[in-house]
């Protein structure tokens, strides 16, 4: 199993929506996929077809002796989901063991070619740090705005296995294209050339509780995510960053 953690230093960068869409895209390319929700907000399952927030999940697995597989769900497209589960106590109990997430993920029994995507809370947070440590590849998700540019400096030092992605890109806004150029100059090759554009198709499909690939197959965002999924699969299976 290969794992990709989706992290970001700012809020509202669209991690959860992107994780869900990427999971769909990877599943559609024929590979088994596991979408792991490591965010106490517990929204990922809702993005993948669940009607109600999942009551139990990763959080419960931390305390229970059983394998995390017991809490996994599967949607009609064949995407397996490990929700975070309802919680009231935040994520402070996760800081006791810095490798708890990795241990839990290792306990999941899935085919070897599975790709796991981990949705995380905003950095800095212990769960996001655990996800970064557990993942084969970290994907930093940014919006092309000034806050993102400011937050770049506060990144974790170890970014050898990290790639950066511009999400919700709106080319009709001059500022965004300018910040994009700045980020490109700053990050160089570690910034993926493929961006994911802002597109109403994504929120609309979630509101309609439908898969975006069926809802708006010709939209820009669907094309973006399909290409991005292909690139990420290549990176994690080849084990080498571009």
């Amino acid at each position: 199993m290969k794992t990709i953690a989706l992290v970001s230093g700012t809020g509202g960068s669209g991690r959860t929506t992107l994780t869900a869409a990427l999971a769909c895209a990877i599943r559609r390319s024929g590979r088994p996929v596991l979408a792991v929700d490591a965010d106490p907000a517990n929204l990922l399952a809702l993005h993948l077809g669940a009607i109600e927030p999942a009551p139990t999940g990763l959080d419960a697995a931390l305390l229970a002796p059983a394998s995390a597989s017991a809490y996994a769900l599967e949607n009609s497209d064949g995407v397996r989901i490990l929700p975070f589960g309802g919680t009231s106590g935040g994520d402070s109990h996760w800081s006791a063991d810095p490798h708890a997430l990795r241990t839990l993920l290792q306990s999941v029994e899935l085919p070897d070619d599975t790709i796991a995507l981990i949705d995380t809370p905003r950095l800095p947070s212990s769960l996001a740090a655990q996800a970064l440590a557990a993942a084969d590849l970290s994907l930093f998700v940014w919006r092309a705005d000034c806050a993102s540019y400011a937050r770049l400096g506060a990144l974790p030092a170890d970014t050898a296995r990290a790639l950066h992605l511009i999400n919700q890109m709106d080319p009709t806004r001059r500022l965004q294209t300018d910040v994009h150029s700045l980020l490109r100059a700053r990050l160089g090759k570690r910034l993926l050339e493929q961006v994911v554009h802002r597109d109403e198709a994504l929120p609309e499909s979630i509101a309609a509780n439908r898969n975006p690939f069926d809802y708006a197959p010709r939209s820009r965002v669907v094309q973006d995510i399909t290409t991005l999924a292909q690139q990420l699969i290549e990176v994690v299976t080849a084990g080498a960053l571009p």
Partner: protein
Amino acid sequence: MSEPARRRSSSWADRLGVADRRNPADWLWRLFVLPPDQRRRWPLPIELLTEALRAAAIRVLGVRQPGRLRDWILAALLVRSAPPAATAHAAEKTPTSLLTLLWRWLLLPLSIPSHQLDRVDFRPADRRLETFARYTTEHRPTLGYLMVAAVIVLLSICATTPLTPLAQLVLFLLMWGSTLLLRRLPGKVPTLVMVGFSLVASSRYIWWRLTQTLDLEPGLESVMGIGLVAAECYTWLILILRYVQDSWQLNRPVAPLPADTTRWPTVDVFVTTYDEPLSVLKPTVLAALSLDWPRNKLNVCVLDDGRREDVRRFAAEVGVQYIIRSNNFHAKAGNLNHGMTETRGDLVAVFDCDHIPVRSFLQMTVGWFLRDPKCALVQTPHHFFSPDPFERNLGTFHRVPNEGSLFYGVIQDGNDLWNATFFCGSCAVLRRTALQDIGGFAVETLTEDAHTALRLHRHGYTSAYVKLPQAAGLATETLPGHIRQRMRWARGMAQTFRLDNPLLGKGLTLFQRICYANAMLHFFNGLPRLVFLTAPLGYLFFEYHIINAWATTIAVYVLPHLIQAGLVTSRIQGKYRHSFWAEAYESVLAWYIALPTTLALIKPDAGRFDITAKGGLIEKGYFDWKISLPYVVLTALNTLGFLIGLGRLLFWNTYETGTVLMNLAWTIYNIFMLGAALGVASEARQVRVAHRVPLRVPATLYFEDGRTIACTTSDYSGRGLGIELDAPVETSADARVQIVLSRGDREFAFPALISTVGADRLGLRFAQLSLRDEQNLVACTFARADAWLDADEAVARDRPLVSLGEIMRFGAIGYRHLVVSSFALLTQRLRASRDPASVAA
């Protein structure tokens, strides 16, 4: 059978079968001709036979309405009224299978050696030849000149050795057979061998003509005979000069620039304008601003000889230097020279105001100035994204190479080998110090560009030609405009030939002299072309034997000359000029450049600078009677000659059938060439002011509600964009959208309105764009580095026989236009004479 008894009591009109009693013509007609229902019948077998023949004729000729005489005439002229799409594809069809089979069977003996030759790799020979040539030119120039002398001696021997007609025929068959084998092989060696054959065949022909065929009667016969032989000598001379110029093209690579941009020179980009509208100038200036070059080393200048307020305001708005002067002396050359006094860059890039450069223009050209300190000029091709009058009126755009592509595809590249690249007035970079050294741009002639280059070469500077389209512009719109432009070139070149003859004076190498001489002499083709278009009439009208020889003897000399030259020309130029098109282009211009070139030779200082109009539109198709008058007259003469020739063939000159047939064939060829010229004169409708350029790149369409469509563009213009869709979208005309295009790794959005909604395509019209948007739009479209690189890809390769067929078809179409326009003109005149009021209304 009729029943006259029943009709005896009725009126005369009924009896005669007059349909319209008030029409006297009808009465007259019926007095002599029976109405169809009273026709007396022939005996049955003859009836059946004529009926079958008539039906067959209708089917084969494709007569539309067999009842109308006009349709029969049109059909007899071999004009099919096929839809335009079908005509466009007709050229791709292979010739009739029977002919092909016959042809293959004829060439069967050649198939065995040709298969053997296919296994030989000729590339090492090519490489050796190139190494040897380089060694000779660089280290042993004397050896080179000795070889030229040896070639001349050998050629003279080959040309002057007397042979019997039979031996001459055998020689021709041997050369022709070898050429058919050689033309299959790639590389320079086979080309040079073929050139050798062609030189032998043509020189033998000219020698024979000059020594054996000039035994003429004094009077008009001598005048015509000597005129013809002079015209032939001219074409022979041009042929030799052209072989020197074209046989070996340099194909110069791009010289890379150093990585350190501080070593890059500073450049002033001059955009010259006089009275062209701002909408034509704008994209060029915006593209010049987007050139990939360090900002502090690039200075864009608008040189406005029109001194217009809106241009000045635009220049200030986009931040480019605006240069004007108090007079318009020496037109463009004077404008450029004045521009030089106001700027200080190391290099000067020159653009006509309608040539839009691509972003990589300077990076592709400037390298040669750094590599070669004597380099004074780097020229790039002129590419046109709109059809010229030939392409538009004949429908050959993107299919048959246009008139200019020979010059930029072959001639300039051949010139470059001999360090004789010409400056073409636009899309070029020049070195300031070199220009100052020769006293600025040449102002003495109408073609300041070629004259400036000539001066640079005389002063020992070198030049370079980079055969990459790095700019594109509008072609001349109408035939008169096109002809006016060519007339100006022809006059300017003739002036230069008189005032600063490249064959004389200091500073040029032998081959530079040849290249310049050919470029200038080439424009004197008007008179010889007119001679060829009328030569057979001397015999057909007056029975002058202006070539005093038997037709068969003429054939064994002239056919090798024509065929060998045709085959080599097709090999060297095929990609840039299809066979027989040179004749078509020259036929159109011949009448108009014959006089100006001759006058310019006699009185070189007469003549005015003329600027051709661009960016117009032709609202209604029409036939240009004024321009085509000389061709109508020539056509009438040739047609008359042809009819008389038929008489000579059948009745009056049966003792010299060969001579009659030869002259008839020549006349037919002329008639078709003239027909093509008439076809060009028939101006097709042109509806778009902004020309659409095909472009297939990914794009995104943003609707107002945030939805998007990932799509591909199909074409663009300065005003709109076409989009291909794989399925219909829900939208309506006039919906506001944003279209996102990318340039490199940056994306740009442009506001637009939906103008047309189709099942698989959308038409967009750009909304009000800010100047910044416009600049980005130009950068994403016209100024893309790869915008014109594959422009030649769509052009079909040359197949001489197919090309001949195509010209003949265009000839026939030209006559259809002529006939239809004549009918239209006649009816219009008739109606006007009958009822002047209705026409005025």
